[in-house]
């Protein structure tokens, strides 16, 4: 029985397409390396420990929110409520400690629980009412933002009135000339845990399968609704942890913080090679994507370029990344 794959040698573009298809983290890696080389040539301060440490700290918030966003994009969904959920959780953590005197650790857990409930609401609306994730999270973006503003009366809570536990994510250690914060380590831990879950567990396999082809997954015996719901809940928990990271990084809780987080998290995920159509991509790419976005901010600033050019550059990158994804998806046998 001769059942060989068609024998023609692939052309170079086909070879590239196949390689990128098999290893989606290659393109963001190349972009990051190219960006770092370019920015360092323009301004050697870019790669110095001080600037690099700052770059990593500045990336932390978007990077952790992008973990939840990655999970949801993998299921062919999208979450526009990330920033709102994060802010709501942060306001709850800060307010119940500073005003009701709830102990710090408990306040963090309650804040994470609120974010989890917000994710659960998104998930129920998506799985039970079968509404498109875009519409659901567009609605809950407004709802959670409104609740956060009403609850906090629009006031920022400074780190001075918060207990040590809430600020602890801002704690800094020096490693040689580098400075690393507890928040950054926490973000990396989240990447490792969720990354392992995605790659090594049945749950992770099902997340990909549901995003790839929900109907096929269902017929194969995957409980599609449950998997989707779990993804939104886990994303909520991650946004809650992100709120804690944000309080340490920003030095307090502000209802107006992370306004750009929705688009920035989606940008990071897409530049990182995760497909908007679901089923393809992963967290390594997302981490690289978040670093790329922040590198453009820092690098262009160090190059003395107007901040608007950063937006321009990121915009071009997003369109490039999606085009590459479209091309990769057409890979044939």
């Amino acid at each position: 029985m001769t059942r060989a794959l068609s024998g023609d040698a692939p052309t170079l573009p086909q070879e590239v397409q196949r390689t990128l298809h098999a290893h989606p983290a290659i393109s963001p890696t190349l972009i990051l390396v190219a960006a770092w080389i370019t920015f360092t040539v323009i301004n050697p301060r870019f790669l110095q420990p001080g600037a690099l440490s700052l770059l990593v700290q500045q990336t932390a918030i978007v990077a952790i929110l992008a973990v939840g966003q990655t999970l949801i994009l993998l299921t062919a969904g999208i979450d526009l409520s990330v920033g709102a959920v994060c802010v709501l959780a942060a306001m709850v953590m800060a307010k119940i400690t500073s005003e009701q005197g709830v102990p710090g650790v408990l306040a963090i857990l309650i804040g994470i629980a609120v974010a989890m409930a917000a994710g659960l609401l998104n998930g129920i609306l998506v799985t039970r009412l079968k509404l498109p994730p875009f519409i659901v999270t567009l609605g809950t973006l407004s709802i959670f933002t409104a609740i956060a503003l009403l609850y906090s009366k629009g006031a920022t809570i400074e780190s001075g009135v918060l207990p040590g536990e809430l600020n602890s994510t801002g704690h800094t250690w020096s490693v040689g000339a580098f400075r690393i914060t507890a928040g950054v380590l926490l973000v990396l831990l989240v990447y490792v845990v969720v990354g392992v879950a995605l790659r090594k567990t049945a749950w992770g396999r099902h997340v990909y399968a549901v995003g790839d082809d929900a109907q096929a997954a269902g017929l194969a015996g995957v409980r599609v609704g449950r998997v989707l719901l779990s993804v939104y809940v886990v994303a909520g928990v991650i946004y809650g942890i992100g709120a804690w990271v944000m309080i340490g990084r920003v030095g307090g809780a502000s209802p107006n913080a992370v306004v750009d987080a929705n688009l920035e998290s989606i940008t990071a995920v897409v530049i990182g090679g995760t497909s908007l159509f679901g089923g393809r991509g992963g967290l390594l790419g997302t981490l690289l994507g978040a670093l790329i976005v922040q590198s453009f901010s820092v690098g262009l600033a160090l190059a003395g370029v107007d901040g608007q050019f950063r937006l321009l550059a990121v915009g071009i990158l997003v369109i490039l990344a999606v085009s590459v994804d479209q091309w990769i998806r057409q890979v044939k046998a």
Partner: protein
Amino acid sequence: MTAASDPGVTAQNDAPEPATGVVLRAEGLTKKFGQVVGLAGVDLHVGAGEVLGVIGDNGAGKSTLINCLTGALTPDSGQLYLDGEPVVFRRPQDAREAGIETVYQTLGVAPALDIASNLFLGREIRRGGVAGQLFRFLDQRAMQQKAEVFLKQLGILTIQNMKQSVETLSGGQRQAIAVARAAAFGSKVVVLDEPTAALGVKESNLVLDMVRQLRDRGLGIVLVSHNMPNVWAVSDRIHVQRLGTCAAVLRPQTHTMSEGVAIMTGAAVV
């Protein structure tokens, strides 16, 4: 095809019996969708090591029949027997657990997942201990090794890399993966709904070869198809579905394709 050497039964009526023991039997299946009659009392049986072809015009009730056999639909009345025991399937999972696997026409596989993941989708092999039980950690090596064994058994070993994503395969190879999955887990019956509809001649033959292998392994096969040459090539008996009922059961040796089509369209009666 041992059944052909059993002329006594064939001569008796137009519903010949399988040569071996009946593995799946349906009696008096009915299914209505509101006012629309999907099935109006259908009997069917398939023996171990037998291929039962199912043909019929659009709307004749083939898919409804298949869905009732595989738990995707619950019939309004009628009874299924598996190995002689009455069974009721409320969900596809029930039928699957009873040893009946289904290959769906288009929705078989998740394209971006690799071959091994697709073969084990929904019933992954997990590691032992807490890691497997509680955290559902996969035993990826075991899945890949078993996947290789499955494909080797079915003669589709040219797919060398079990980590290759299914979308990089040809249509026939993808369908082969879907059939391999059914073969790997189906212990009694494999039901295929239009498995060759989207395939070229060569690829169709690949799938038909696999069907024959499953038959030789002693599974009961129900093959729904519009492709008459394919049906006549592999079937031991052919169930002709028409207007929600079974119009006839034929043998490829006793009826030509055009006679079959005539019965199917109502141009001829048995």
